[in-house]
């Protein structure tokens, strides 16, 4: 039960009524209290009831009652008039049971229906790509991998799924049956926001689906490399040329003779420390060291590297023969194992996606709880890494990666080193956008979540040149998120700026028109609906929502009560006259 005295006149009138009641009761007491207490009580009660009735009428008294409303919601996939789910819920507050027809609602929308008993008849999804996923944000050199399944009615039907580049050329394709997974890969050419197309072609050559695949290729954050080597090598020379030409900073410490060293710093700021020190190790992102240089280091320096790795430094070690015998003496390499191969073992191999032949050390590499970061075309493990504190230590038996360069295959060379750095280098401390859900398909009117990572909360996020609020994550204090609701399809531009208005990172996401990705979006909603229904079935009945409603009291009752008690008062006065 509740009343509403929010309007000024109801408040004023209510106050006057209560004031009048006070005076009235005083007069009644004076008149009746000594004469007849029963009569006094009756009159006082009648007055109070009349005032209360008037107050209830003024305050629009409502009574909360439990309701049970069973409705049907039509969603895309049906032929009826489709209401907006949010408005639908507002319009039907007494909703307790809901039948959802059509493809249903997204997981975010279904959250609003928590506690309502939902029945969801799974409809047949139209033919097209489903469970489609691809990274929405890449760096130059990273591959765009589009995965998914092709939904169709007939299992025997075969569809050729093609990935078409922005120029309209096919870059990859796969032939799939119903429900089979496809995986299409390409290499975006340059920075920027690009549209690829995912096409399905049936056996007659007809295009049965053509969906845009939006991807934003951003600029990679700078990396700082420290190289220690027992002698200058072609490997590090080629690495230096590529890395520093592409923005990396590098410090190379090379032994050129006995107790003679060559220190080369490239792209480092003036006055940067060029010695092997703890501070320097903590400043660089990746230490690249050959096995012989590592074994020649004194114990103190080894422990410095170990500590720096625990603090986050990545360490990449080119294994050498001399390192093998001392492997167990170095705690930095705990967990790694190098076993000599037989004399006939193959040490020449192809790397994946390459026709260049490489040499490797005649050892088999293993690491407990390690992961591989360099693998040959036949699955040979050539490089493995293990976590050490916050950092990673990797060992590689692959030799002469620069053969790619010598063969003019700069793409493969640069991608290989990029993947090594991505696996091993220190986690970037730059403020940046966090990866977006690979399955995200944004549509107008749908919520779009974007998160950033920043060590300070003074960063500002702009969406389409408008500043938007960032909310700090309660578990990860460096994670901030925002939610926006694009109203029209098109590119959604996000810019992360520092307090000094300097651009730190950019992200472009695409909001697709409703005509795009219909099957994939329908499948997402169907999956969300199924998960929601399954979740409900596990809930106890007590957890289900019991909706109540504030029903305004019928004015007739006010009138009857008022008439009744006013009549009592009238009669009491009459009786008084009669008594007198």
């Amino acid at each position: 039960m509740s009343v509403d005295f929010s309007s000024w006149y109801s408040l004023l009138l209510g106050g006057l009524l209560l004031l009048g009641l006070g005076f009235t009761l005083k007069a009644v007491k004076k008149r009746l209290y000594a004469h007849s207490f029963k009569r006094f009580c009756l009159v006082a009660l009648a007055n109070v009831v009349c005032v209360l009735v008037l107050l209830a009428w003024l305050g629009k008294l409502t009574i909360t009652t439990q309701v049970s409303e069973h409705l049907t919601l039509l969603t895309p996939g049906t032929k009826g008039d489709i209401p907006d789910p949010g408005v639908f819920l507002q319009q039907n507050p007494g909703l307790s049971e809901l039948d959802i027809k059509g493809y249903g609602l997204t997981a975010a929308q279904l959250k609003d229906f928590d506690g309502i008993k939902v029945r969801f008849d799974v409809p047949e999804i139209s033919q097209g790509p489903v469970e489609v996923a691809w990274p929405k944000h890449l760096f130059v050199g990273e591959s765009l991998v589009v995965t998914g399944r092709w939904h169709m009615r007939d299992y025997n039907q075969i569809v050729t799924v093609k990935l078409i580049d922005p120029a309209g050329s096919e870059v990859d394709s796969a032939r799939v049956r119903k429900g089979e997974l496809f995986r299409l890969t390409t290499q975006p050419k340059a920075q920027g926001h690009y549209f690829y197309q995912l096409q399905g072609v049936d056996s007659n050559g007809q295009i049965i689906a053509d969906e845009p695949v939006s991807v934003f290729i951003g600029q990679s954050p700078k990396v700082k490399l420290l190289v220690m080597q027992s002698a200058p090598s072609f490997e590090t020379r080629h690495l230096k040329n590529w890395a520093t030409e592409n923005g990396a900073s590098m410090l190379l410490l090379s032994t050129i003779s006995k107790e003679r060293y060559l220190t080369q710093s490239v792209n480092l700021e003036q006055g940067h420390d060029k010695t092997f020190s703890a501070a320097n190790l903590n400043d660089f992102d990746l230490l690249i060291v050959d096995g012989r240089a590592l074994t020649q280091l004194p114990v103190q320096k080894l422990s410095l590297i170990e500590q720096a790795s625990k603090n986050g430094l990545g360490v990449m070690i080119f294994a050498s023969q001399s390192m093998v015998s001392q492997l167990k003496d170095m705690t930095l390499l705990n967990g790694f194992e190098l076993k000599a191969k037989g004399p006939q073992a193959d040490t020449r191999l192809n790397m994946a996606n390459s026709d260049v032949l490489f040499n490797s050390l005649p050892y088999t590499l293993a690491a407990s709880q390690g992961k591989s970061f360099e693998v040959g075309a036949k699955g040979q493990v050539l490089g493995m890494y293990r976590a050490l504190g916050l950092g990673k230590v990797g060992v590689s038996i692959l030799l002469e990666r620069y053969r790619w360069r010598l063969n003019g295959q700069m793409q493969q060379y640069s991608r290989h080193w990029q993947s090594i750095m991505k696996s091993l280098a220190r986690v970037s401390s730059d403020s940046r956008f966090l990866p977006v859900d690979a399955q995200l398909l944004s549509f107008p009117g749908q919520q779009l979540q974007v998160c950033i990572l920043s060590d300070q909360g003074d960063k500002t996020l702009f969406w389409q040149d408008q500043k938007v609020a960032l909310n700090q994550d309660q578990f990860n204090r460096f994670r901030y998120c925002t939610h926006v609701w694009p109203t029209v399809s098109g590119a959604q531009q996000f810019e992360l700026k520092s307090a000094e208005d300097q651009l730190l990172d950019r992200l472009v996401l695409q909001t697709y028109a409703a005509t795009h990705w219909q099957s994939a979006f329908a499948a997402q909603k169907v999956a969300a609906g199924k998960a929601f229904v399954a979740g409900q079935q596990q809930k106890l009945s007590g957890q289900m929502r019991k909706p109540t409603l504030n029903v305004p009291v019928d004015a007739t009752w006010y009138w009857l009560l008022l008439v009744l008690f006013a009549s009592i008062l009238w009669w009491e006065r009459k009786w008084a006259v009669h008594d007198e």
Partner: protein
Amino acid sequence: MLNRTPAQAILAEHLSRLSLNFLLHRYILLLAIAIFFFNTIEYVAIIHPWLDKIYIVVFVALFFLANKTPKLNEHSLAEHLNRIVPQFEESTQLLFKPSDDLSVLQHLQYQRIEPRLLELEQQKALATKLPKKNLLFSFSALVFATSLFYLPQASQFNREKNQGVILPLDTTVAIESQQIDVFPPKYTALTAEVYRNRDIEVIEGSKVRWSFEFNDDSKIYSLAFADGLTMALQKQPDNRYFAEKVINKTGLYSVVASGKTLPEVYSLSVIKDQQPRVRVINPVATLVEIELDGDPNVAIEAMVQDDFGITEVKILASVAKGSGEAVKFRDEEFLFDDYQLTDKGRLYQKHWDLKALGMESGDEVYFTVIATDNKAGQGQTARSKTVIVRWLDEEERSINIEGISISYMPEFFRSQRQIIIETEQLIADKNELATPKFKAESVSLGHSQNDLKLKYGQYLGIEQDEGAGAWGGGASAEATEQGDEDEHQGHSHEHEHESPDAHEQSAANGSQQEVLAQFAHTHEDVHIGEVSSQNPKAMMKKAVSNMWQAELHLMMHEPDLALPYEKQAYKYLKLAQQAERVYVKRLGFEPPPVSEQRRLTGKLDQIKTRSETTDNSLDAQSETGANRIFQQSFALLNALDGQKGLTKAQRNLLSNAKSTLTDMAQQRANLIRHAATIEKVLISDSLKIDGCEDCVVKLKQKLWQLIDSALATPLAGQQPYLNSDGLIEEYHRLGQSGGER
């Protein structure tokens, strides 16, 4: 006639001669001025319609000014002589006066200087000629002015840089009718063509004549070309406007009416005269060996094709006699005996007797066929591959093959890569090329692939005989047949490759490599097994097998199907190349590794610890210019998408892209369409072009094709947390303490 004194007669004669010199000098100078104005007045007229009138006024003024030089008379001659002959004591004027008019004193002076004049005249010391430098100047001016006649299109063109400038549009003027006559160069023997469309495609060097009729005759019209040149349209009595130009470059043009551009842009594609294509049909192999007792006669057949005609085909031969340091070369040129006309071109034939060339066993002749076409000016020349005919000595037979095969390999690799590049280009241009041209290009690539395949065939010692027939006629059909054949062979090679007993089978084939392998693989190198697993010959056979398939598809005008095979062929060639390198390397000297005790033990006085600091980061500007322009233009077109109104920076960027495409169109004429699209975008100031809905889409596609793939860049770890995060630190701390326990 008056009675003249001898002195007066001499002076009159000098005066007459000098006057003639003066007149000649002035005439040459005025002629030079007139020619200069004549040659330049049309340039001026193009800048502004009224400027040519002012120019004429300036010319007339200058003409009169140049004409108004001091007159030559007795007085000026006397002054001149006074100045240059001191002996006349400033009294030359007296010599012109009649003796009756002279005073006594003047008479005395007259008598003093008259003998001096006579004496100087006798000595021919009177310098009364004009200085030579004056005449030289006049002649130079005349030569310069006359040379302006020979400037290219000098009478009609003016260079005006207008890139990125918003030209005012004139939408009131309409072209009511037009006729464009194209006159191909005479040497092509093609007839003139009449174009109704203003986008024209012409043979290089064609003369194009535009004739327009406009709805407004009060304006001055010109044609503006994309490279900044403008050409006035001359008004004819019938109110048509006319201009003509010899076209040598692919470009764009539009019509300008009194300084305002009409909204349409038209393309002018130039079809280059192709170089002759020369192929030696017979001998098929690059290397022909004639046994010591073999027939020393060689039949040479060469197929020569050209788009317009051949003027000369000859054989350039070098005969090498002797061996080692005593080898001597002799170059000679030969003509073919005869030729036949075939569907594919002219088939030239020559019967060559090596003995008639003065050769003996042990000698070699290297020959190449050179063909020159009939292109005007200077014909284009093309050469065939070089064929080596070796008349063997008994003992050298087995030595040469290995060395030659290795030395030729790099050339093959380049060619295969070139075929791949050109195939990709052809696929990219598929939509823009006319079907016959596309097919012709594809077949042309097929021929190149065939060439390469045959080279390998002879290197491998297989399939040497099939090639000639394939090219000579019915290429596609035979290619298919042979492709199947080779596929079988390819399979058999694979079996051979996989067999553990490869050496035995290889030796049975009789290839030199296997023979060598039998005897050379006896040392105890542990890596010999790997060498056989990367058998270069097997790799090359696979490469050839793929070349067959590539050629088949190219001949059937399916370059997109051919491309994977071309790439496979290239891949196997690379593998073969590497395998060959390894083979050589493993046989060489491998020093034992230097021990730590021996290493770094030399004198170190001269070796210093040193430090270098460099800045090696490439800025955006250093990236390839065209690539950067295409990237930025693609991004701009993507971002604009329907937006109207370009900023100045955007216009500049698109203008640069247009210029770059126009430059590239000199080699790939179809790119000019995309340059035209950019020009239309610039004119309409929007991505929406009337009457060409998909032009911008096609432009974007082309730009994407032209963008080079960027290299991957160094990258830091991208995990979704920061190391300074409390939770991560805690996790780290727990991990450490756990580890310690």
